[in-house]
């Protein structure tokens, strides 16, 4: 069995609000799988269904070969969860909260726990009530990532962390996958996903609208070329595979589809290349392709307010 997570047609509603509308998510073992979408798209609901904290209305979910609702307890021994906004017991110290959560899961590597407390620069003697948001998050991260388990469910784990700690977090996730662990990383920080993920799934309104390895997804999108030539390019927007072009004298910026990249480069070469830089498609472009209309609608709504 090489799938850590597999869901088929998962649905979940809260009253009249449809949170998940037939979600199909597959996470291969050994992957860091990015789970991308804006707030309210259904990321946290999905993860809570995978944890058996919520019960699906329809569809089927399998986590590490088990049913997350029926086999919750045995399954939880084999996975760790880091929520995005964790509430802790105000009277316990951070160290006590970490030890408690680790002990309740069962598998605890004390050396790893101490190492992570150190690397995340957490003071474990402070009471949870006096931690800032970022420090509360560190408690959840250490309690989750110190576990010796097969699967890590991380729900916007770095919210509230500063850039230094974010870098530490990325290192730790890489160590986990190097040791053979599987990670489902829900995020709306695209740079984080781009840096860590082997594959991504984009969720919108409770459905997966795009999924695949990052390399394969990039192939579907456009590369941006910035060129300076000896002879100005002549109407490049008419060339096959070019989706947009801005020409100003001898410099030009072209957006090129992946399949026609070779042909376009040959045509440019004929004009005598002075400089050429190519920017790979970013996850942001990929993401905006699926959310572009939502963005346009937001812009449209904003307009009257501006003109008023």
């Amino acid at each position, binding site marked *: 069995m090489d799938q850590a997570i597999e869901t088929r047609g998962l649905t979940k509603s809260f009253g009249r609000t449809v949170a998940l509308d037939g979600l199909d998510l597959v996470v291969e073992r050994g992957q860091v799988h990015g789970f991308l979408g804006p707030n309210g798209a259904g990321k946290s609901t999905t993860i809570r269904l995978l944890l058996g*904290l919520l019960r699906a209305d329809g569809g089927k979910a399998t986590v590490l070969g088990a049913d997350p609702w029926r086999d919750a*307890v045995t399954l*939880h021994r084999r996975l760790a969860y880091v929520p995005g906004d964790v509430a802790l017991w*105000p009277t*316990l110290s951070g*160290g006590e909260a*970490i030890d408690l959560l680790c002990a309740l899961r069962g598998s605890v590597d004390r050396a790893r726990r101490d190492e992570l407390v150190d690397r995340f620069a957490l003071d474990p*003697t402070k009471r949870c*009530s*006096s931690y800032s948001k970022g420090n509360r998050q560190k408690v959840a991260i250490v309690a989750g990532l110190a576990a010796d388990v097969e699967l890590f469910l991380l729900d916007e784990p770095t919210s509230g962390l500063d850039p230094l700690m974010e870098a530490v977090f990325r290192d730790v996730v890489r160590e986990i996958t190097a040791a053979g662990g599987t990670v489902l990383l829900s995020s709306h920080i695209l740079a984080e996903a781009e840096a860590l993920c082997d594959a991504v799934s984009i969720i919108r309104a409770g459905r997966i609208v795009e999924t695949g390895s990052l390399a394969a997804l990039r192939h579907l999108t456009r590369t941006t070329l910035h060129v300076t030539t000896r002879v100005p390019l002549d109407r490049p927007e008419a060339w096959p595979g070019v989706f947009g072009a801005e020409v100003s004298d001898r410099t030009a910026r072209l957006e090129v589809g992946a399949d026609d990249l070779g042909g376009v480069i040959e045509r440019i070469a004929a004009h005598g290349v002075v400089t050429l830089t190519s920017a790979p498609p970013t996850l942001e472009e990929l993401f905006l392709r699926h959310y572009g209309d939502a963005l346009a609608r937001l812009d449209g709504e904003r307009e009257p307010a501006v003109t008023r």
Partner: protein
Amino acid sequence: MTATWRLVRLALRRDRIVLVVWVVAIAGLAWGTVQSYVSLTQTEADRIAAAALVASNPLSRVFDGPASGPSVGAMSMNDGYKILGILTALMAAQAVVRHSRRDEETGRAELVGSAVVGRRAPLAAAVVVALTACVAVGVGVALAVGATGVGWTGAWAGGMAVAGAGWVFAGIAAVASQVFGTSRGANGAAAGALGAAFVLRAIGDLTGHVAPGGLSVVSAWPSWLSPLGWGQQVRPYFLDRWWIAGLFAGTTLLLVLVAAALRGRRDLGTGMVGAPHGPARAPAGLLSTTGMTWRLQRGVLLVWVAAMATMGAAFGSVGRTFADYVAGNDAMRAMLETIAPGAAPLDLYQAFLMAFLGVAGTGYTVQALLRMRAEEQEGRLEPVLATAVGRACWLTSHVLVVGAGTALVLGSSGLVGGLAYGALTDDWSGASGILGAAAVQVPAALALAGLVVAVFGLLPRWTSPVAWFALAAALVMGQLGEILELPQWLLDVSPFTHVPAVPAEPFAAAPLLWLGAAALALGALGFAAFRRRDLAIPG
């Protein structure tokens, strides 16, 4: 102080239900206290006997206050003040903390503070809201007491005494909110001050002397160090000391000025004393579901055991005195004999006492079980259930701790009550009667616990209102059911109606077994429902 008025309106909007409930509940208690004196002391001889008992009995002086003559108004305001004053002080202190320190803790104050709002405006608004609520309570108490027909001057003096205690504790909470960095710390300090005020007043009234005539007490000086003592020294329907209003107002003003000065010297979100540090590693005892539950539940259990043992000691030790008093008071005797006709006064007293303490102690059961709902609602249960802790296991640990805690809370009131009575009278068979009367309350308390667990599983949002309403209904039915002439089928809904009135009645096992069965059935229903439902997660 810019924008204070706007923040006052915001606070009143946030508190529109809770403050109204406080005002209505406190006024209702005042009314009920006067009514019970009206119905229990119908003749002049009854009133004189009651006043003489309260004046001469050391424990009445400790718990009730200084006796102030034989009028119904004076006796009921003296008896009722401990509850009315303490509740009003708690209401005021909590309101101030809620709108000052609590807002800083949650970060709301930061958002508000970045707007066009003066640095001291949130504190000023919190104090204004609390003081206004106290005035509303005072007016409510005065109207409720006056409406019973015992006279209006004393009613207004009584209202002033209640509101004044609230004012001073609003001021104390304002200072505590500056000194402590957490709302828990600030509320704790205010509650500690309230406890100290009670103790000072109790010492002052205990060490005072009985005035000539034997119907009133002149308190010693420690009473005058306590805001609760000042409230008692207003002596409504006896001396009506209006000048004490100035003492309340001046002290409150002083405390608020101190709080404002402290606020000007500190940063937003910080306190004057830091939160203490804890261990870097958890002790082994914490590292299990039961260990975690015990850690979360032990504080409330210890407070309740101490409080109920104290109550048991107080009421147990006056058993003989009270029995003698009942023997000479026909109205009181008739009222108690509705429990068990023809029983001995001491047995009646013990059964009546434990029927009250049984329901009161169930307050522990409700409060402790609601901790489960708080854990769920505030998001602390989610990470726990994401570990290898099953829902049934988590629920079982809480139910077992609370079930054993309930037996301990009720048992300690009976045991300490019996020991106190036995030590004073050497009547050890009477002493065991109190313990038995306490023990038979446990199945009824557990039946109510079963209801709370069932609602927690089936209708989690309703857990808290249903639990408190059920407890309040049981209390009203037990204490006032006969006076209000409620129909028997309605009284039968309360589990406490079915408890045999041991030792006035012979022990009967059947109703207790039925109560235990009801507790198990309701609890099982709650377990089954909790295992099937979605977890409630904030945000």
